[in-house]
């Protein structure tokens, strides 16, 4: 079975379990925190993926790092994943959890790339607009890319709304070549 299927299964199970215990909110917050902190620490990823380090050691490491920072349920889940020999895909499970949670909450990430920084007013306007288009709560992340020449692009899921000068020049070029 592909790791995609497995991580989906673990993520969904945790979500249901947390829901039954009325801890969904807390566990979800934990998961976001976990994704962040694991991504930041390359060593931890290497340790989790390493087959040489034995299970008890990994148990200890996980306990040491997260014991006082996450809910008891979350910690138990981490240890359970380790016990089932799935600690190598722990990060994928966490990512998948956060994805599924976002879909449930009708939230969506929007990657906005522009040449210059937007003002707060512009940002609000854009977000309101994107919300209207996608009918979802937008979680924006802004970045700068000067190769766009002008304008901006927005990426929501797989769909790109491209109003950059770079794209328009490309289109113009295509049109000229065609005729």
């Amino acid at each position, binding site marked *: 079975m592909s790791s995609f299927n497995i991580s989906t299964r673990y993520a969904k199970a945790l979500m249901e379990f947390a829901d039954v215990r009325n801890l969904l909110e807390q566990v979800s917050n934990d998961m976001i925190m976990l994704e962040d902190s694991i991504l930041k620490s390359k060593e931890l990823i290497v340790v989790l993926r390493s087959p040489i380090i034995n299970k008890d050691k990994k148990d200890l490491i996980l306990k040491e790092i997260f014991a006082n920072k996450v809910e008891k349920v979350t910690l138990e889940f981490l240890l359970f994943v380790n016990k089932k020999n799935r600690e190598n895909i722990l990060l994928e499970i966490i990512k998948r959890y956060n994805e599924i949670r976002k879909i449930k909450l009708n939230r969506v990430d929007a990657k906005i790339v522009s040449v210059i920084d937007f003002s707060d007013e512009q940002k609000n306007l854009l977000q309101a607009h994107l919300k209207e288009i996608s009918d979802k709560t937008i979680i924006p992340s802004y970045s700068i890319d000067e190769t766009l020449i002008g304008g901006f692009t927005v990426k929501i899921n*797989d769909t790109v709304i491209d109003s950059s000068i770079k794209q328009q020049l490309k289109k*113009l070029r295509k049109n000229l070549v065609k005729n």
Partner: protein
Amino acid sequence: MAEVKPDEISAILRQQLAGFDNEAEIYDVGTVLQVGDGIARVYGLSKVMVSELVEFPNNVMGMVLNLDEDSVGCVLFGESQLIKEGDTVKRTNRLASFPVGNAMLGRVVNPLGEPIDGKGSIQHDAFMPIERKALGVVTRQSVSEPLQTGITAVDAMIPIGRGQRELIIGDRQTGKTAVAIDAIINQKQTHTQEAKENGIEPVFCVYVAIGQKDSTVAQVVAKLEEHGAMEFTTVINSGASTPAPLQYIAPYAGATLGEYFRDKGQHALVVYDDLSKQAVAYRELSLLLRRPPGREAYPGDVFYVHSRLLERASKLNDSMGGGSLTALPIIETQQGDVSAYIPTNVISITDGQIYLEPSLFNAGIRPAINVGISVSRVGGNAQIKAMKKVAGSLKLDLAQYRELEAFAKFGSDLDKATQRTLSRGARLVELLKQGQYSPIKVEKQVVSVFLGTQGLLDEIPVKDIKRFEQEFIEYLELKENDVFVSIRKEKVLSDSIVNSLRTNAQEFKNKFQVSE
């Protein structure tokens, strides 16, 4: 000196570039996860369709073949070296399609419809998807019009009708392509004024070359041009050096172009040269896409690959315009082994096969058709009446000849009847020999077959048969051209024509000088 004002220039530029809208563009993208061997795995592209074209960087196009849970498998139509991990892939919202239109005639293109003959861009009418469902039962009718190949042996014994699928099968170097090319060249006469008067509708041809040497294809194109056949022919070439995915889609592209003519109520002939190489290309990309291998390592759906292609050949009924699409697939066998996987598949799909044999080819019998195992399952209905009448006993005579051929060396020790069968057979075989690129009109075919089957050649020495046939036809053309005109127009062999043929043949025989 005339002056050009700058604002005039900008006005013209603006005018020329009008219609170019600068609205924001919305498209779907994915990211390349893995690339190599002409295959790319892409993450994202969540709404992509199977067999949709996708755009990679550096002008490389790809086609989606696998939709998996977390990724999409694409085949690349360009070099995979130009693509790297993490590249952005764009949807085009267009299924893999082929440009169609009369402007395609006379051109050499690749399977995506891009010209490769250096004659500039093509003003096509429309794009049609290369994968289309074959038409259903209600829109079809049985094959009723002949598709003359100009090869006497084929037109007399293995007749092909418009809308039929006739397989040409044989080892390498047995003249498979030659049969197909002759058939294309012979369609030239359907485009003449004379054919129009006789109610014969023009046939447009598509020659699909799959996995062949580009030099061979260039030769074929040159030959077609030399015989004036390129005017109504499109050559779709995916040579041996093109990526396997392009070789795989080439026949479907050819079928699409053929269907364009068929759906207009016209007639098309598509030659797939050859489908064994297409199967090999499909095997390659299937294995790279990690589909499980089956017999001879071909994937499980290799039968469907060919059946859905050949099923698109059809003769439409009159309410649909009466157009037709005839398919001449070619299969190369190894050492005459027709029981290999792909040959048996295609034999079972087609409406008959023309079997070419190296032993016949080497014995100088060309076209090297093995009449015994070559069949046409539906073409008989399409044969003109005159030909049906004269060719009736031809196959039987030849079969009897082959049965007794082994005894030929006993010569005069044999009884009279056997000797007669042998001498008749040897003359018929000689009669059916025909040079390459020299198609014969159907009325002349009827006359020569008549000579053979009626025993009018029995006294002529075998080595003089070809000369006798040729000279007799020339003689008849000068003396009684009405015979040919009447066969061409009436398509039947009336008693008066039979009598006139007999008397003329007798007359000519008396004048004929047997060579020393």
